[in-house]
């Protein structure tokens, strides 16, 4: 079933016995207890471990629903239409589709963003940081114990031109709260030598991307560090498992800068397994626009995610005017 009323009713319930509020978004209902998040819709129900649920929801909120599909798992997720968002259950799951138990609601972006942000704030305890690696955060479980607003509302780096240029996103250092991560203690902190002639300081620019990434406090959170029109360099540091399964609405490219990531690749619409992609330092690979992928990084690694942010692309691909793979040979 698909509902497309863009004036979606929402409501918030009083805290339950564990201290957490319930939320209604259209015909979807969300609740949590000490261990699990529960989601119901007219034709079904779903349960997820609440730490995995919050890690996925954190990305959805911080990324403004990102490019394409953010699958929380094989059942629940969102699809971005850049102005509206589909909230779905079972829509991209072959079994749910065949049983006609799937459900989709199209919701104004502001509406779903506000409800998700409120839910994330209410359900995230003081001890839990959904952006941190499992080794660097406390527990998400138990009855409600405080909140962690600072962690869930971190500034997302979006350089206008390039990090470090005057007036653009600043470098990271100990002084602004970005110590070198424990797994990158051996990464060189040397910076390039810059000799700008007077008057050209805004254009003669360079910085150590590797040192910058070694000081990232978060995982699986692409941030824009340099811009070439719609071409965006969005590097990120990865440890443990990508908390979402990203379904592409355009090709994106990965450049592995350090260490290793193993990607599980499935068909975007059915979840059928297609490939594993093993990436080591220096490797480059495309993720086509008809797949979904989830990464596994045994050690904290540096990944350069390269995106084309053009809003025209999803229609070009979905209409068949452009192939799902970015290059043909």
């Amino acid at each position, binding site marked *: 079933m698909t509902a497309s009323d863009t004036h979606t009713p929402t409501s918030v319930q009083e805290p339950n016995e564990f201290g957490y509020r319930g939320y209604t978004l259209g015909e979807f209902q969300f609740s949590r207890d000490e261990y699990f998040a529960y989601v119901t819709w007219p034709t079904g129900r779903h349960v997820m471990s609440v730490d995995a649920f919050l890690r996925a929801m954190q990305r959805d909120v911080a990324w403004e629903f990102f490019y394409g599909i953010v699958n929380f798992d094989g059942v629940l997720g969102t699809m971005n239409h850049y102005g509206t968002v589909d909230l779905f259950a079972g829509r991209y799951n072959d079994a749910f589709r065949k049983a006609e138990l799937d459900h989709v609601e199209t919701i104004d972006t502001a509406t779903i963003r506000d409800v998700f942000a409120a839910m994330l704030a209410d359900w995230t305890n003081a001890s839990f940081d959904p952006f941190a690696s499992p080794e660097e955060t406390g527990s998400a479980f138990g009855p409600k114990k405080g909140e962690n607003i600072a962690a869930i509302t971190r500034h997302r780096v979006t350089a206008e031109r390039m990090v470090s240029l005057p007036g653009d996103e600043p470098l990271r250092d100990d002084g602004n709260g970005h110590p070198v991560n424990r797994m990158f203690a051996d990464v060189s902190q040397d910076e390039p030598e810059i000799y700008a002639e007077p008057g050209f300081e805004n254009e003669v620019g360079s910085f150590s991307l590797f040192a910058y990434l070694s000081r990232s406090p978060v995982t699986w959170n692409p941030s824009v560090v340099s811009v070439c029109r719609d071409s965006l360099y969005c590097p990120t540091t990865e440890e443990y498992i990508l908390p979402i399964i990203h379904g592409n609405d355009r090709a994106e490219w990965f450049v592995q800068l350090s260490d290793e990531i193993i990607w599980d690749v499935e068909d975007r619409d059915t979840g059928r397994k297609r490939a594993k992609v093993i990436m080591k330092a*220096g*490797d480059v690979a495309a993720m086509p626009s008809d797949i979904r992928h989830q990464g596994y990084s045994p050690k904290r690694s540096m990944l350069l995610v390269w995106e084309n942010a053009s809003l025209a692309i999803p229609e070009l691909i979905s209409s068949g005017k452009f192939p799902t793979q970015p290059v043909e040979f």
Partner: protein
Amino acid sequence: MAYVTRLASLDDYQKGGVEVIDDDPKNYAFSNIFEVASHARPFEQIAVGKNFEYVLEAVRVEGTSGWRACSHDQSALVMDGEVEFTLRTLGDGPSLPDSGSVGVPDEATQTLMGRVVARRGHLTLLPAGRAYRYASTSPAVLLIQTAEGVDTQFRWAEICQTA
């Protein structure tokens, strides 16, 4: 526990790959920057990524390049070695294409804007409408963020995993 961050270089890289379950490995255009650069001639701009008009170019730097310029910003990430970038203003002579970089004659370059000496992991801006060149005394590797231009080379069948 002391962790070791695994970087790579022209002399020391390991390549991963696509393990197919039900797919064509060519869909992933899988390559390795160091492998591409190890087979490249100096200053060839070989595409290792393409997303509509935008490309990522792997460049082997060995010696001093000619002067180049571009109508839009680019960036250059040093993947291996040490590279010196020199930037100059550009005279009125050359008209720059809308997409990608082109070579420009020495006499078209004018005032020195500055220099950058960059090593592995350093990202350098190649600003729009300015002339630049890069140099290295020993083989180095750049990854250029740019758009497809007249000098972009496409060798997918040669550099990518096909089976």
